[in-house]
């Protein structure tokens, strides 16, 4: 028998959201600091990494042959100050649970991605962004402190003031500086649980970028959905949805009695075995066409619920299964302002390659933060899901070259295939990150498939 990473804990296969590249690890549930410390100190040569709700598309929360800590079992709210909106939570709590608890009390999470099924620990490790990045920045900017279990078994309370280097290596650090145990998060006050949403249709990429550049600052939340299969003059045609939370007096009279009513739930689930071949170029193109045509050309102040506006896909459980057994990936890259041509080339080549991709998301980022591996930086970010198919590896490698030449980068939480040499050119503070890691984890206890693949 092979030696087990943790005696008595069997190895189980783990994958990310894209369901590609499975590897085996000892999945160890963590309920408290002592269990986490014991697992870290007992980790063998293959090391340890923490895992939350596994919404990273690739291999960030996998550790082949080693230990993976299941943090979702440490998910309590430890303290909540309803005057200030400061909450102390365990890292395994999900944004979904935070919303269930605090939206009815008048608080929303400071940043949410397209799914609320992520943990706070994962949100910090990936330094997630959302539709409000251009005004609010990313998740790490809304923390007062993090409790981090480091390789020596110590729990350190780190903040931007007390330990700037370790804090900003941990924010966006993909769990490679230690185990994030707890954090104090600044929630955002809201008067209602409804959003006022404006919708605009733009016929091509130029008009889309112009619209976003000129008027994004008027909105707190903004995102555009692009039809990646539209070519030629229609390339980049989009539906732009932008909005903000409604104030109490902006609600219709019948809703004012319960302005903070909130219900987030999964409505239907994709069956375990989804008919392969149902997703092809023809069906996806038809879907995209219908979706574009049914969107209003110009609509103002439409009231939408939080799930409808922020998390439309969360209504369908296990939607990642529609891409079949070979899985899929998400290609997400950003290029700086002034490099719009690079974004056009990326979109154009993806469109001509003919991936059966649903919509791509385009957004304008605001300023970045000091996170050494934090993804957002001023410019345009594009994200689209692509099923694994022949020729994709070569295409994406060549698109990476376009992105690097434009001074852009790829997002580690989504990545499952970038080349290590390519990645080196994307993050100019990678050496700083490595220096912090070497100091706080000299023996390299914290590692993951992602860390091995990219030689982080």
């Amino acid at each position, binding site marked *: 028998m092979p030696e087990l990473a943790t005696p008595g804990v069997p*190895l189980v296969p783990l994958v990310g959201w894209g369901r*590609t*590249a499975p*590897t085996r690890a000892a999945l160890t549930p963590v309920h408290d600091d002592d269990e986490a410390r014991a697992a870290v100190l007992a980790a063998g040569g*293959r090391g340890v990494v923490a895992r939350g709700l596994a919404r990273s598309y690739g*291999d960030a929360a996998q550790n082949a042959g080693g230990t993976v800590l299941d943090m979702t079992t440490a998910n309590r709210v430890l303290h909540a100050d309803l005057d200030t909106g400061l909450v102390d939570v365990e890292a395994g709590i999900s944004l979904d649970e935070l919303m269930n608890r605090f939206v009815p009390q008048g608080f929303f999470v400071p940043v949410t991605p397209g799914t609320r099924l992520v943990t706070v620990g994962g949100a910090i490790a990936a330094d997630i962004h959302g539709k409000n990045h251009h005004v609010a920045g990313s998740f790490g900017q809304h923390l007062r402190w993090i409790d981090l279990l480091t390789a020596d078994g110590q729990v350190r309370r780190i903040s931007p003031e007390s330990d700037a280097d370790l804090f900003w290596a941990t924010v966006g650090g993909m769990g490679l500086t230690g185990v994030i145990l707890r954090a104090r998060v600044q929630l955002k006050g809201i008067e209602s649980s409804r959003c006022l949403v404006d919708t605009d249709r733009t016929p091509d990429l130029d008009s889309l970028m112009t619209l976003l550049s000129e008027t994004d600052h008027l909105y707190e939340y903004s995102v555009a959905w692009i039809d990646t299969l539209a070519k030629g003059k229609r390339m980049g045609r989009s539906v732009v949805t932008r909005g903000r939370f409604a104030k109490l007096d902006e609600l219709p009279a019948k809703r004012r009695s319960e302005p903070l009513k909130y219900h987030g739930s999964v409505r239907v689930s994709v069956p375990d075995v989804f008919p392969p071949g149902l997703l092809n170029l023809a069906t996806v193109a038809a879907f995209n066409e219908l979706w574009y045509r049914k969107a209003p050309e110009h609509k103002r102040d439409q009231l939408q619920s939080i799930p409808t506006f922020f998390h439309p896909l969360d209504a369908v459980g296990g939607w990642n299964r529609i891409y079949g057994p070979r899985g899929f*990936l998400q290609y997400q890259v950003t290029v700086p302002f002034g490099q719009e041509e690079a974004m056009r080339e990326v979109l154009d080549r993806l469109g001509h390659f003919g991936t059966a991709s649903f919509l791509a998301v385009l957004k304008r980022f605001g300023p970045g933060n000091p996170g050494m591996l934090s993804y957002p930086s001023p410019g345009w970010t594009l994200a689209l899901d692509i099923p694994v198919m022949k020729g994709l590896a070569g295409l994406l490698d060549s698109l990476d070259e376009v992105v690097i030449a434009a001074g852009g980068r790829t997002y580690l939480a989504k990545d499952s295939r970038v080349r290590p040499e390519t990645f080196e050119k994307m993050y100019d503070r990678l050496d700083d990150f490595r220096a912090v890691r070497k100091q706080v984890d000299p023996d390299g206890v914290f590692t993951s498939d992602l860390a091995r*693949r990219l030689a982080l």
Partner: protein
Amino acid sequence: MIDALGSPSSLLLVGGTSDIAVATAHRYLAERPLRVVVAARDTPRRGSVAAELQAAGAQVRVVDFDAADPGAPAAMVAEAAAGGDVDVAVVAFGLLGDADRLRSDAAAVAELAQVNYVAPTVVGTELANQMRRQGHGVIVALSSVAGERPRASNFVYGSTKAGLDAFYSGLADSLVGSGVSVLVVRPGFVRSKMTEGLDDAPLATTPAAVAEAIVSGVRKGRHTVWVPGAMRWVMSGLRHTPRAVFRKLPI
């Protein structure tokens, strides 16, 4: 690590000077640079293969391996893994042997069985142990259509490949759930240094074609590939041919 699109970052070539092993490395290198460990006897050809792969963008390491030495596999796998995880290992060594001599020379039969069957099973066991510890990896074993139904003209070679094929097919099943997988490759007649001077058999193929099948098989998570693909149906027919007829076929 092998990424989401089936691209490995390291490759171990056991029998690293075989034409199929070298072609496989070139096929991978045409896409991306990667680490390549060349395990082979210390010969001038090993040096030139290492230089050639380096020039093609590989980060090459050379490790001693002699299939005739029973202690070689353990040391070879340990040394190969010292530089990092072995993502894909190609077991590509083997001898064709002189069929006429093998008909009567017991020592030659023993040597062929050692190199073509015993050593590959020991290598496979060591690789499986290493990859189970890693929690991931793919072992590619070069079998042959000759093992599907050994024929009088080269039955000793065929029998060693039949044994190797059975071993790796069984190993594949025993590794289910371990994160490690095995790809058994069954080429027909391959024009290479092993078959130099021999006349082409029907459906003859090339090292490059076998390499293509290996890369695509690993990418798709296949368990068996035939090269060329039509060989599967030809061999299926031959397997069910009555012995009296099979014996008289000019193959």
